[in-house]
C-alpha cells in the first residue's frame, strides 16, 4: 500500500507539547494490603517486600516496596467515586489526537533514585515532552512521550519515568 506521507501533526496537536498534568498524589500512604496485592499480582516471592523478619536482616531493616511498585495508577482518594474514564483521562488524557484514537503503550524507561517504604506517600507530575509522527507498516502513527517525576512526602526524588504512547488511526477523539 503506497501512501503519501501526510503530516497529521496539526498545530493544535503540537501545541500540547510541554503541557503539564495536574500533580497527583497517592490516595493514602503505602499500606500493607496495597503492597500485598501488588506482590501477589506480579508473582514476586522476594521476602524483602513482605516478610518483616527477613527484611530486618537486610540493610533496609524493614519491608520495602519493590522498585516497580510506584509505576501504578494514582486512583481517586477515599470518598471519591470516579469512573474509569476519568481516571484514565487524568493519566493519559493530556494529549488529544483526533483521528488517532487507538492507543497502545509503546514502552517506558524508568530511572530510580530511592526506595519506597510502608507509610510513604508518593506524588507524580507528568509533562508532555514530545509528540512526533512515525510511519508504521500499517500506516501513520503518532508517538507521544511523557516525563513523569515521582517524589515522596519529603520531596525526595524516587524515580523519573519516560513513557511513550503510540496512537494509530481510528475513529473518534476520545480514548474510550
Amino acid at each position, binding site marked *: 500500500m503506497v501512501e503519501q506521507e501526510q503530516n497529521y501533526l496539526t498545530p493544535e496537536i503540537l501545541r500540547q507539547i510541554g503541557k503539564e498534568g495536574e500533580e497527583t498524589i497517592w490516595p493514602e500512604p503505602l499500606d500493607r494490603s496495597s503492597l500485598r496485592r501488588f506482590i501477589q499480582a506480579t508473582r514476586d516471592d522476594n521476602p524483602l517486600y513482605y516478610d518483616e523478619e527477613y527484611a530486618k536482616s537486610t540493610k533496609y531493616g524493614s519491608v520495602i516496596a519493590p522498585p*516497580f511498585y510506584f509505576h501504578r495508577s494514582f486512583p481517586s482518594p477515599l470518598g471519591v467515586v470516579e469512573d474509569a474514564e476519568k481516571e484514565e483521562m487524568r493519566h493519559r488524557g493530556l494529549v488529544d489526537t483526533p483521528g488517532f484514537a487507538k492507543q497502545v503503550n509503546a514502552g517506558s524507561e524508568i*530511572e530510580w*533514585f530511592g526506595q519506597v517504604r510502608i507509610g510513604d506517600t508518593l506524588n507524580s507530575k507528568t509533562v508532555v515532552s514530545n509528540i512526533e509522527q512515525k510511519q508504521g507498516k500499517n500506516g501513520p502513527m503518532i508517538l507521544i512521550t511523557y516525563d513523569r517525576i515521582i517524589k515522596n512526602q519529603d520531596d525526595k526524588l524516587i524515580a523519573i519515568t519516560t513513557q511513550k504512547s503510540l496512537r494509530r488511526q481510528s475513529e473518534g477523539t476520545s480514548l474510550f
Partner: protein
Amino acid sequence: MSKSKLFYEDVNIGDQIPQLGPLTWNTTDIVRFSSAVENYEPLHQARDWARSKGHKDTLINGPIRTSMLHNMLINWIGDDGFLKKLSCQQRAADHPGYALIAKGSVVNCYIGPNGLGYIECDIHIENQEGTITAPGKATVVLPTNENPNVPEYFDLPNAKS
C-alpha cells in the same frame, strides 16, 4: 527469588542473567495485576471491548512485562544491589494465555564516579513462540569489594541523558 549477594567482580560481559519464567498470563492473572495497580482500562480486561476497538483480544499490560523484567533483575542482583534503570519497548502485543519469559545478558560493566559497580544489560520478554515482544535495557548498581555499601538513595546527577 534468590537471596543472592552479587558483587561487581562476579559479573562479566556476556553473562546471561538467570531467566524468569515461563509464566503464563491468563485473564485472571491479568485482571489481578490490573487490579493491584488499579488500572481499570477495558483494553486489558474487557475482551469484547478490545475487539470492538480492532484488537485481536485484550492485551497483556505493558507493565506486566516490565514487572517480569524487573523481577528477573531484582532476583539476580539480590537485596544489596540497586536497580537503577529499566527501559522496555512494547514492540508487539501479547494476549491472554501467552507464556512469557524474561531474559537478559550483560553488555557493559564499569565503575561509576561513586565507586560503585554499574552493569548494563540487554533484556527482553519473549513469548511461547519465541517472539521478542518487549525488548529493553537495564542498568543495575552493585557493591564492589572496595565499596560494598550501595546506598538507598541516589542523587540527580545520575539522571538519564
